[in-house]
């Protein structure tokens, strides 16, 4: 399959809706992410940002709407076409999600061993390079359980990078880390951005890190896009929800809390 030319959206969503049972979590999102940019999706807990990420990689099926990744509508794609797309993306999970029964090195080698015909010695070298890129050289033989939280995330990055993906997804890269380690992770993402011309989609609730790494920010609010645009535009936005999120103001009115609760309980009764 010929890859579409560089300009134009790599990922696009049109009227994307996702439901869990009767509860709709994403209420018709429209956005585009273009080649080579780093898009950061920010939003509070329960805003649907993790669901959005899971939908973009095909782990969650939308109830309606369309998601195109590299031109292919993944909501209608066959399993085989989906696998082809998945070989071109990498996803670093929040908790790492490294396979516990394999060593760190084996985890990174796994997609290479399964999907390529490279020689084992070549794969070994590639694993070493990937680990070096994320600052974990020498940790090949460690088991994931022996690593700290930050190291596990780095190892997950290395695995996501293993197949030299065209699109890289990060789920909460700095969540649950101390400020120094979190800053290290941000630097790592910036390094990756400089080293490759990859399209990156980062989901986070860390504002500082979002403004640091993003080319463009999408602010999700209760399943809707409250604002989307270049970093400066978001920073200077006058939109009340955006200001509230950026200025870290708690929801004060009772109505907001009730609305929020209703979002979760809709259709349960």
């Amino acid at each position, binding site marked *: 399959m010929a890859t579409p030319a560089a300009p134009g959206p790599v990922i696009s969503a049109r009227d994307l809706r996702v439901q869990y049972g009767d509860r709709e979590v994403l209420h018709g999102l429209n956005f585009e992410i273009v080649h080579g940019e780093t898009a950061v999706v920010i939003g509070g807990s329960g805003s649907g940002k993790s669901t959005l990420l899971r939908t973009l990689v*095909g*782990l969650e099926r939308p109830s309606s709407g369309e998601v195109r990744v590299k031109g292919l509508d993944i909501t209608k794609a066959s399993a085989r076409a989906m696998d082809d797309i998945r*070989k071109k993306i*990498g996803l670093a999970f*929040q908790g790492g*999600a*490294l396979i516990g029964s394999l060593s760190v090195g084996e985890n990174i080698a796994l*997609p290479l061993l399964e999907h390529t015909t490279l020689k084992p010695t070549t794969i070994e070298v590639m694993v070493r390079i990937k680990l070096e890129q994320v600052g974990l050289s020498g940790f090949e033989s460690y088991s994931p359980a022996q690593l700290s939280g930050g190291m596990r995330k780095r190892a997950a990055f290395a*695995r996501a990078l293993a197949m030299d993906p065209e699109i890289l997804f990060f789920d909460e890269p700095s969540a649950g880390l101390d400020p120094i380690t979190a800053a290290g992770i941000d630097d790592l993402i910036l390094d990756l951005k400089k080293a490759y011309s990859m399209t990156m989609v980062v989901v986070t609730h860390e504002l500082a890190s979002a403004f640091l790494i993003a080319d463009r920010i999408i602010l999700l609010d209760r399943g809707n896009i409250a604002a989307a645009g270049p970093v400066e535009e978001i920073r200077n936005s006058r939109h009340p929800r955006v200001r509230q999120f950026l200025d870290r103001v708690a929801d004060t009115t009772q109505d907001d809390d009730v609305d929020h609760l209703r979002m979760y309980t809709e259709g349960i009764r």
Partner: protein
Amino acid sequence: MPFVAEVGAATERSVAYVGALAQLFGKSLRVLFVSPLKRSRLAQRTVHQAMAAGVGALPITSLITFFVGVIIALQGAYQLQRLGAMQLVASLVSISITRELGPLITAIVVIGRSGSAFAAEIGTMRVTEELDALETMALDPVAFLVVPKFLAMAVMMPCLAVWSDFMGVLGGCVFGIVSGNFTFGSYVIATRDALVAHDITTGIVKALVFGLVITAVGCQEGFATGAGAEEVGRSTTSAVVISILLVVVIDLVFTVLFYLARGAA
């Protein structure tokens, strides 16, 4: 009548569950023949599983079936002595072990060791998002995790059953020799005369089916695990309970079938 409705609902759930098991088995078969994953890697994982589920179960299975062989001989002798038919101990032990207890006890040991482990392994991978990670790497969890387990169990369960037949008969033999009525040679001859090939093959067929059922239930329960560590425990428990129930039910069905077919055989 809420009671009738409940019975109906429970029946429907049971049928749906068996359907889900069959679906998992069917998908595994399909993946086995058309999987895009590499054969050599599949073989590697299958050997790994076979070592853990089959070879690893050898010592404990041997010990238990050996003791069961002794127990059957003792219990049998207790009754047969009154009839003055002590020479029948050898055939009693060999037939009950090969046709019934060998495969059944092997199945129960394997459920405890491997059925529970399958559920716990896949359940934990669900909780830690490892299953999602496999999927995003274009590695189908069924092809990657379930198929090797089915293959390993389909080979190892019959082997284990034959081995436990041997150990059970050995247990009976020890009793036969100790109680004085048999020599090793005469016990072996008595066993050989009592057994026909059919006794052993029915046991092997049962063991094969048990192996497939144990794998299907273990994996199914693993995939059905919800969020949290507690859920992994729940999956493991239900994998063991459901497997034991299904194995006994299937054993009953097979025994009835073999019984009805005895004229033809």
